[in-house]
């Protein structure tokens, strides 16, 4: 899952990026509100971790503009402002969650997973699509009752497809959701991962629509 982290403090931003990376998130980190706004306009993220005191465009302003533009991306405010009035203002401006610094990385990751889950309309933390079970927390996959060992990127790819079963996702969309900026992507990376997934699971599980993209059917064969 690709997360946008907006935090102007170098040391904290670096720690959060590394920590969320360890938790299995793909993290893009920006240091000011204006750049974050541009990034959100151009690309799609599973969720946003937003600091409030940001240069150029404050977190609250960014959030309000985002919601005015009908962007439904889940937003978690992570700030040092702990006053109740600030929390209320943040949530009322359109935030989905509010966490005060300093916080536990595990809790932050769990809240992000919950936000993403809820935004996709799921109730259970474990995704179930036919014979396929995906546990985003444990990063574990079970197929027809048997655990399957997947590489990190393979898991991420399967997870992205499973989050929106029945929807066709293009290679570009998948690449965008899987890779942070600055990561070199080989042109056939997605195809390679799909190939591995089919081999480890079942060839017919992921459907290819030529020239369009890939899809995990709601009721796989």
């Amino acid at each position: 899952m690709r997360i946008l982290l907006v935090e102007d403090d170098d040391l904290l931003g670096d720690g959060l990026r590394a920590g969320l990376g360890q938790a299995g998130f793909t993290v893009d980190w920006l240091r000011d509100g204006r750049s974050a706004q541009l990034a959100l306009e151009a690309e799609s993220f599973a969720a946003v971790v937003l600091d409030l005191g940001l240069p150029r465009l404050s977190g609250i302003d960014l959030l309000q503009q985002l919601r005015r533009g009908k962007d439904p991306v889940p937003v978690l405010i992570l700030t040092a402002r702990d006053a109740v009035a600030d929390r209320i203002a943040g949530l009322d401006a359109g935030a989905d969650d509010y966490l005060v610094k300093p916080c536990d990385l595990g809790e932050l990751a769990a809240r992000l997973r919950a936000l993403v889950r809820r935004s996709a309309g799921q109730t259970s933390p474990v995704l179930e699509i036919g014979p396929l079970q995906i546990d985003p927390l444990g990063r574990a996959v079970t197929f027809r009752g048997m655990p399957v060992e997947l590489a990190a990127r393979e898991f991420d790819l399967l997870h992205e497809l499973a989050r929106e079963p029945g929807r066709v996702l293009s290679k570009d969309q998948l690449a965008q959701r899987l890779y942070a900026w600055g990561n070199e992507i080989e042109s056939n990376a997605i195809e390679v991962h799909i190939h591995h997934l089919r081999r480890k699971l079942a060839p017919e599980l992921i459907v290819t629509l030529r020239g369009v993209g890939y899809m995990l059917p709601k009721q796989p064969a």
Partner: protein
Amino acid sequence: MKRPGSLRARLLLATLAVTLVSWTVVAVTGYLDTKKELDALLDAHLAQSASLLMGQLEVEEEDGEIELEHAPPAHRYERHLVYQVWDRNGRLRLRSAAAPGVRLASVQQGFSEAPVGTEHYRVYSAWNPQARVLVQVGERLNSRWMVRDEILEHLLIPLASALPVLAALLILAIRRALRPLNTLALAVAKRQPDSLEPLPFAGAPQEVLPLVDQLNGLFRRMRLSLDNERRFTADASHELRTPIAAIRAQAQVAQGAADGTERRTALERVIAGCDRISHLTGQLLTLARLDAGTAAAQPCDLAEVAREALTEAAEPAHRKSIELQLDGAAARVQGNPELLRVLLRNLVDNAIRYSPPRTVVALTTGMAQDGAWLEVADQGPGIPPSQRQRVLDRFYRVVGSGEAGSGLGLSIVSRIAELHAAVLELGEAAEGRGLAVRLRFRGSG
């Protein structure tokens, strides 16, 4: 009333004392006047009686004493009046019933006073040349004294009886007049300890207004400083939370690190975070101490202090390949060398922090006509004029500076300058590039 120090008791005592004294003065002068008038009146009466008696004495009889029959006294004072008629041979020819047998007065004419037997008399004597008799009319002085005493009584009795009534009325009046003070005291007493709302002005009398005004001024100043303190505390907690969050995140990253390199990097960042927070805490403590009061001043040389500050900054400057320059002409000021070093250290630290590598930070001191001055100039990005005032605010950082300063350095500089009554100016360094901070001290050490 109960406490001797109370306004009410003082007012009451003063009013009563003034009343008593003025009343006594009025009574005494009234008594003296009345006595004078009374004496004149009674003397006139004596003289008149004498001339009336004289008019009745037409026939002079050679011999024998003539007893005149007396009507019973018509007035209570009448029996105190006596008269005698003496012939030229010194024989008593006529006297009133109560008159003594000896002469009332030795004088032939006019008023006199003399004791006769056990009595004192005031006597009017008149010589009748036709009848060739001496008429003397006397009045017992006792009776005059009685009248005087009665007048005195009439003056003093009301005074004695009216004084308690007056006191009671005064107590009521004073209590009523002082009621606004009680109301004010009650309003102050009833306040919550943390309430700094102004007291209501309405209904306060003119004498109490300055007090209410001063109290409200005090409340206003307290509220301002309390607000400042609250804002500072809020800002400080905010500023402390971010580095703590960073340390925690980095520590957790180290915990979850997959390999040694990742762990080492994260732990190095934990240490960097600790350094940052200890710097911030140090700056906060410095500021708190500066806020606490003034520092002892002694003569010192800015050039000397600048030299020390540069020695301390040599290491961080070297790391960024920044050249430190000192042009230190003697600049004597009256100041606290410890604080001045903190000031210079902060200015030099800032200059190094915000300057690009391989640039120059120049420190200059000198004497102008009106006093010593110092300047720290760098070749960094400078501060736009619109933000030069705001950077002195606590925790304010120039947006986009990309540096993790405490946001307190220039606040500390500004506060120390204030304690030295020095003028702090932020401007552009030479060629309009970089920041130049100038401090002008008044007078010399």
